[in-house]
């Protein structure tokens, strides 16, 4: 699993770097924005560590929190970054992901997987539909 995650990360970063080589401007993340995303990711581990020290049950710490809190914090961070950029489609995606995470948290350990899975599908399909709608308004389709 760890190998798969690392391989996936390396492949994703490699493909993205190749695809965006020579591109600069609004779509590139600035250092401050990367810091915000990294802090959101680090905060998840701090929360897990804090809950572990506080003696919260293992099911919550190792199942519910990793399933939902990264979506809430990552989604909110992404929404905040895109609100600052006035880029409203990714802002909506970030907010949607955060709402899905919150719904998964409220649904509990057993239902969190289903809520996250269905919720993320809805958010990502909604985002894809928004992109298609925007492209169809233009005659030129990339």
């Amino acid at each position, binding site marked *: 699993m760890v190998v798969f995650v690392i391989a996936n990360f390396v492949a994703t970063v490699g493909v993205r770097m190749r695809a965006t*080589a*020579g*591109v*600069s*401007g*609004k*779509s*590139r993340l600035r250092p401050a924005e990367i810091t915000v995303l990294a802090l959101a990711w680090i905060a998840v581990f701090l929360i897990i560590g804090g809950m572990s020290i506080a003696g919260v049950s293992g099911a919550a710490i190792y199942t519910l929190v990793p399933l939902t809190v990264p979506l809430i914090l990552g989604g909110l961070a992404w929404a905040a970054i895109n609100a600052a950029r006035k880029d409203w489609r990714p802002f909506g995606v970030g907010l949607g992901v955060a709402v899905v995470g919150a719904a998964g948290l409220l649904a509990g350990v057993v239902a969190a997987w289903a809520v996250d899975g269905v919720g993320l599908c809805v958010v990502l399909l909604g985002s894809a539909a928004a992109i298609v709608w925007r492209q169809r308004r*233009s*005659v*030129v389709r*990339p």
Partner: protein
Amino acid sequence: MTDELDPLIHVPTRLKIVATLAALPDGDTLSFTRLQDLLGLTPGNLIIQLRKLEEAGYLSTEKTRNGSAQKTTVALTRQGHKALDAYTQALRDLLGGL
């Protein structure tokens, strides 16, 4: 009907340039060297084509200097996007009956 095809964009090399730049997200620019790599053009040929498109207001170029290195970036202007939209529509109309 072919009068509607913008002769400035209709040249294959310039059509490739405009289509490539149109694929960039709003507010983004592409470096001269990357554009050259993507299209397989010589620097001289690319400069000539870019100049023609820039003179027509279809694209903007920006030169930035970082120490001794100079970087040139290019982007399609709103007018360039509109021209490509019009060109594509004219082409669709022209070929629609086939």
